[in-house]
């Protein structure tokens, strides 16, 4: 197990370095930069170019960049929040993003499981057929379309929810109430994915031989489902959920903008538009890192949930 984790971490580190380089070069190869504004005085432009090594060839800039990151210097925002360190911008904005994503995850898992389980238990009933169609619908509709639709119907037409996120800093009812729509928009797709997966897994588990044996033991239906079928059906759930969470993080980028959430993604999008490259890189790398760690966690989760993988190879016979 330890060896496996080490292997995965090394592989992830390589992937991280490649992605870091790729994003850096793509970003800095884009035409124009922060000082291409013609109204800036020639002397000022020179000074800025000098300070940020903008006149050097790209590989040299990359070397400077890496050196700074090694020293935990993540640069300074020049345009979106002039003069503020990237790390401070990040610290200030991450709170609400994490809050939103965490709520969405906490909402997704139980609701998705509920639908998956009930659909499997009532397989081929009217309920299952309707729910399955909805599942396909929610999986296919992209999050931002869902967000816009929710905003239009529930917030604008019906007025049940505020259109954008409440500006309160503390988490109180007003704030939570305004967070409901973004949470919905973030969760519906993942709920549908979990429901679909669990329905398929549980339906298969219910018809398995070990369920027949459990029945022959004299266990009640509830005991059989909870103790035997669900246990098996949930084996692939852990990893799927972690992968879904990566998806939620990325769709949160768009959805934060729709609902005016002052989170990381808002800064990210404005930094890209303003060519505030240091800020863009800092936030992007954070997302890359989270994504890589999540995928390692997803792979390890198999081993935690499934004894056959946990003890793979250790056969005593």
């Amino acid at each position: 197990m330890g060896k496996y984790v080490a292997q995965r971490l090394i592989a992830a580190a390589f992937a991280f370095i490649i992605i870091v380089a790729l994003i850096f070069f793509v970003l800095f190869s884009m035409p124009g930069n922060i000082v291409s504004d013609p109204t800036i005085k020639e002397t000022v432009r020179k000074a800025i170019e000098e300070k940020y090594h903008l006149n050097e060839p790209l590989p040299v800039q990359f070397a400077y960049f890496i050196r700074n990151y090694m020293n935990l210097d993540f640069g300074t925002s020049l345009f979106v929040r002039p003069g503020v360190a990237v790390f401070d911008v990040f610290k200030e904005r991450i709170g609400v993003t994490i809050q939103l994503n965490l709520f969405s995850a906490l909402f997704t898992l139980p609701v998705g499981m509920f639908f998956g389980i009930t659909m499997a238990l009532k397989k081929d009933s009217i309920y299952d057929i309707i729910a399955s169609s909805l599942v396909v619908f929610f999986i296919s509709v992209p999050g931002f379309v869902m967000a816009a639709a929710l905003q239009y119907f529930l917030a604008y037409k019906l007025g049940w929810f505020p259109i954008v996120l409440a500006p309160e800093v503390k988490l109180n009812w007003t704030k939570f109430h305004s967070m409901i729509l973004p949470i919905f928009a973030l969760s519906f797709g993942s709920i549908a994915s979990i429901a679909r997966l669990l329905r398929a897994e549980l339906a298969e588990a219910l018809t398995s031989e070990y369920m027949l044996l459990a029945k022959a033991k004299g266990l009640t239906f509830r005991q059989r489902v909870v103790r035997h079928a669900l246990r098996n059906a949930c084996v692939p759930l852990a990893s799927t959920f972690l992968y879904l969470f990566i998806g939620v993080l990325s769709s949160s980028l768009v959805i934060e903008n729709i609902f005016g959430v002052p989170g990381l993604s808002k800064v990210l999008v404005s930094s890209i538009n303003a060519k505030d490259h240091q800020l863009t890189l800092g936030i992007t790398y954070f997302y890359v890192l989270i994504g890589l760690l999540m995928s390692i966690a997803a792979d390890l989760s198999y081993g935690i949930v499934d004894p056959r993988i946990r003890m793979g190879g250790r056969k005593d016979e």
Partner: protein
Amino acid sequence: MRTISTEKILEVRDLTISFNTYAGKLQAVRGVSFDLHKGETLAIVGESGSGKSVTNKALMGILPRTARIEKGQAFYKGRDLLSMTEKEWEKVRGSEIAMIFQDPLSSLNPVTRVGKQIAEIFILKHKLPRKEAKRRAIELMDAVGIPDPEKRYNQYPFQFSGGMRQRIVIAIALASDPEILICDEPTTALDVTIQAQILKIIDRLQKEKQLSVIFITHDLGVVAHMADRVAVMYAGKIVEYGTAEDIFYNPQHPYTWGLLSSMPDMETEEGEELYVIQGSPPNMLYPPKGDAFAERNPYALNIDFKEEPPMFKVSDTHYAATWLLHPKAPKIERPAALQRRIEKSLKRAKGV
């Protein structure tokens, strides 16, 4: 052979089961009747699709949803099992009637510790405390011949070989001290050396616990070892029914002849061709008129194609459903090769 008690523990009468399929109604079991005596082993023999497994699933109340019991009764301790509700079944399953399944590789829950799968019966059904349940489970594992049961208790099924897993399945079946044990081809998935061990365990436990056993198999060799009485099934019906001696030394039904002739034994000589029953079983969506075996029966009479034969009584213990036993039927001798075999094995049985 043991002396068979005449006390009936299970009486199955006219059991008829069909499956609703897209193609129509499949008549899997067509009026099966038999008795199970206390402490005996009844073997139900037949080829795949003859309805032997379905019959016994009905006796466990574990028929699939598509199956329907059309008619019939199964009396156990004065109760008709077939009319019981699911709630009543939960008290009978495991505790009164238990079952050993065909494939031990897939019948254990792959992600639960083996010991827990036994112990949960004591915890959930008998409301024993955890410690006591564990002790009883380890005792059972020891009884079915699992070495080092304390260590094995905490292992998962994938750490067990096929034979060891089947022992666990047997331990599970015996956990609640059932009266009747149904063995649904318990050795089919195992290799031959392990088969013998498993059969020995079943045989020993049956004697220790005075179990009444229904043994489903298509392996006549196993039947010869295990059974007190034999029921031969074909196309959803019992075609011959008698003590093991009746079936092996005095078979009456042409299908039984076919089965016995197609079984190799120690005397089978090199180059000697084994008998093959020609054709294949009828499509039970449209059971044939008359005797279902008539198409494949080289001794079929005209009437076999027109009318189903009733059960003819051969002796007090022996019945067969073939028109050949009708008083007006032409006298047909058993195939010569089979007759020779029977005489040889009779001689052997007496000589030793």
